[in-house]
């Protein structure tokens, strides 16, 4: 199981073995939504907060 730190509050994030790039997570400590930028190595950043929208 991988581990990384929340870039906002520094809390340790426990990550599953099936982690994929592009996955969205929530920091259990501060509640910030995070984006997994890569898995080797594990890099997470704060996810963008954009209004939801879609096409046809």
């Amino acid at each position: 199981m991988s581990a990384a730190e929340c870039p906002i509050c520094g809390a340790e994030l426990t990550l599953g073995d099936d982690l994929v790039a592009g996955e969205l997570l929530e920091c259990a400590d501060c509640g910030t939504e995070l984006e997994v930028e890569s898995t080797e190595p594990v890099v997470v950043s704060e996810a963008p907060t954009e209004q939801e929208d879609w096409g046809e």
Partner: protein
Amino acid sequence: MIVIKIGGGAEIDHEAILRDLKRQLDGGERAVVIHGANHEMKIISEQLGKPPRMITSVSGYESRYTDAETIEIFNMVYAGKVNTMLVALAHRLGINAVGLSGVDGGLLRGPRKKALKVVENGKRMIIRDDHSGRIEDVNVDLLRTLLDAGYTPLISPPALSDEGEPINVDGDRAAACIAAALGADRLIILSNVPGLLRDKDDESTLIDRVDRRRMDEFETFAEGRMKKKTMGAAEAIDQGVGEVIFADARIDDPIEHALRHEGTVIS
């Protein structure tokens, strides 16, 4: 002024709709038409070896994943094949139609969605290569110029992004934007169901009237593509459209039936 959205599902009777439109126009009505092409898009995509991949947003709205290859097919199907065929059919029936995509004349403009949050295989994911967006501006001058010159605009997605690219936009919400921008009295959304149904598998459970102030209670009955139709309806009403009518596109005189409130009326 009425704005009519023709759904892109199977079983839509385009000839009946346009025949009815001709009667309305001959009676002095002015109209703008927007159409979808979802069913045709699915067929053509599969024939080209690029079957549709549907994605579901984090709040449950389904749409087509529109990568770079898909937007090319989208342009060909919506603005090319289907729009051209509908405009030709309109002319055969005596309607002086002009076919436009949202790109033409910058008719429908807005930002491309740079990051889309979806749920896939139980995981929340972010997608960054989707060519979808939302409409923030309607070129009303272009529509009024055409209408005043005696043309009936027949409009299709895509829209034009702020960066000058074609983008996939939801047709029902595009219809709402156009209706609001024109100050239309009515927006009629024709699809392959009679309207909003309590039970989507039972057409006898039609909900015939929805008060916009109580929309939240009825949105729970909207599933699949109907979710976006109800969102489009709410947006239209909030932006000043008098009423929105969901009605059946599979019957004769569908516009007349809709104007008589035979469907789901939202106001």
